[in-house]
């Protein structure tokens, strides 16, 4: 009898192969989440969908780094996930692809000093969620130029004047950004915990304690 999909390799694979295999597996996982759950949530048109998905994605990248802390892993996985997103049916996918890549880059940056630190995980999640929440404006800046922001500032001022407090619009924006950062940080911390427990589970499996 021949067994395919063996769980344990006969010889340890090369570190470079393992790095890219990790990037492929976790990038594909993130891509699958984006294609399936992402498409579903975007169809529902719920608020903060992008930030929620970014928090999930960042959590996944943080979890992956607990299994294998090699530097560059998050960026490589994000590159793979972005290109997997290109398989989404219909629509212009350029924006989401750039978004995923930027989120991966921010997670990589936050985890660079200490890939397994809790603080880095929280910062990674917060940055990714903030990126996703503000990506629309970044893309609008790229498409329409800086004039659009002058228009937004003018609108905020005008709205503040109507409310009787000229700066209130800016405070509302700041509060929303804080909420996004908090959501992302929670995602990052959850990813950190899940990753630690998954690594411990794999260690126990390797030691033969778990079937």
């Amino acid at each position, binding site marked *: 009898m021949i067994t395919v999909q*063996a769980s344990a390799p006969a010889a340890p*694979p090369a570190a470079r192969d393992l790095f890219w295999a990790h990037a492929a597996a976790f990038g*594909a996982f993130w*891509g699958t989440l984006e294609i399936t759950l992402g498409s579903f949530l975007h169809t529902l048109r719920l608020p903060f969908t992008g930030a929620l998905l970014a928090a999930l994605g960042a959590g996944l990248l943080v979890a992956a780094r607990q299994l*294998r802390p090699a530097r560059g892993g998050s960026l490589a996985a994000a590159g793979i996930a972005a290109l997997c997103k290109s398989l989404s049916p219909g629509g*212009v996918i350029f924006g989401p692809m750039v978004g995923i890549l930027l989120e991966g880059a921010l997670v990589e940056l936050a985890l660079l000093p200490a890939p397994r630190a809790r603080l880095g995980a929280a910062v990674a999640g917060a940055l990714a969620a903030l990126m996703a929440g503000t990506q629309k404006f970044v893309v609008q800046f790229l498409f329409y130029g800086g004039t659009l922001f002058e*228009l937004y500032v003018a609108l905020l001022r005008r709205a503040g004047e109507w409310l009787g407090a000229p700066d209130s619009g800016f405070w509302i924006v700041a509060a929303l950004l804080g909420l996004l950062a908090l959501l992302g940080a929670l995602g990052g911390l959850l990813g950190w915990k899940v990753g630690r427990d998954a690594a411990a589970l794999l260690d126990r499996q390797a030691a033969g304690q778990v079937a």
Partner: protein
Amino acid sequence: MTLRLPPPLVLAVALGTLALQFSGDLLRSLLALVLWIGTLVLVDRQSLRRLWLPRFWAFSIAIALGSGLLLGERDTVWLGLAISGKGLRAGVLMVVRGAYLFALASWGSRQLTGTGMRRLLRRIGLIRFGEALEVAFGLLPELATTLRRAGGEVSGGRGLRGVRPGHFYQTAVQVVAQTGLLAIRVASEKARPAVETPPPAPAASRILWRIALIGERGEGKTSTLQRLGERLREQGVTVGGILQPGVHEGDQRVGYGLRDVLTGEERPFATKGAQAGLGFTFDPAGWTWSRDALARGDEDSEVLLVDELGRLEARGEGHLPPLLALAPEGRARVWLCGVRAGCETEIAQRLGPWDRLQPLPAPGSAEEEELLQEVRRRAG
């Protein structure tokens, strides 16, 4: 009609029009937009169709008008409304730039999909990234199934109300651990010596039409092939080959059988491995049996059914060597293959290009009727 211009020329037009945008001059930006839209009309109308997004256009027009109303000194009266000419010009420039970049992104995103991107990555030297991407594309269906299964396990089939946070957490840990294991497996497979692939399909010497019916695990590839085979047989076409029906215990697939389509003979083939989630154990005698059934079917039938071409075949194993070894003078003119989603490209690289790729047709659908008609025509 769409022109087939060389890709470097289209890229040069894209870069040229992009450069025109840099000055920030309204007329130049407008010229760049017209040039690029004209190019798309000639070379890629599909990209133009993707620009039909009413929300985007409504937003663009709103910001142009908003600029006229809110930015700069109101020095012009337009339709009885005092607006700023400078602001309106800035708004129109924004819209023109937005439309141009959107059209460019629409075209660019179509170039970034599938094999085009993988070829590009190879060309620019990112070979390892390209390889990892191919692996990732191959893993997508498996991971989608893992996610669906995990979702079912979390809710226990009771919907969202049945979700317990603790269970959700444990499932997340399991899924991440399984993905880690998957990575180790992929890296280990790469470390193995490459499987010797025989030279390209010998069957190329006859006029052969190969169809890939793409489906995920459990989507119905086997039942579709079986139904198509029966319909063809009713219409007087001889059909051979192999089917690989799943063996189930409750909702769980616990193994596979083999069926010789020509004779109707069946035998067990694979059983689930001892460790859950770690694959199936195949009976080596089953491979010999299926090889003979394929050879017999190819020799004695007009249409050959080949079921369950998947990751093994993508690596040059499984049913692939017997298919490559089929005699050039075989009788079958059409191969109807059930192919696991995500494996079609790798299999085509070993077996030769598919003449037609399509998702599984629904029973009695127009697609199914059209497919059967085409198969009958080719087989005859």
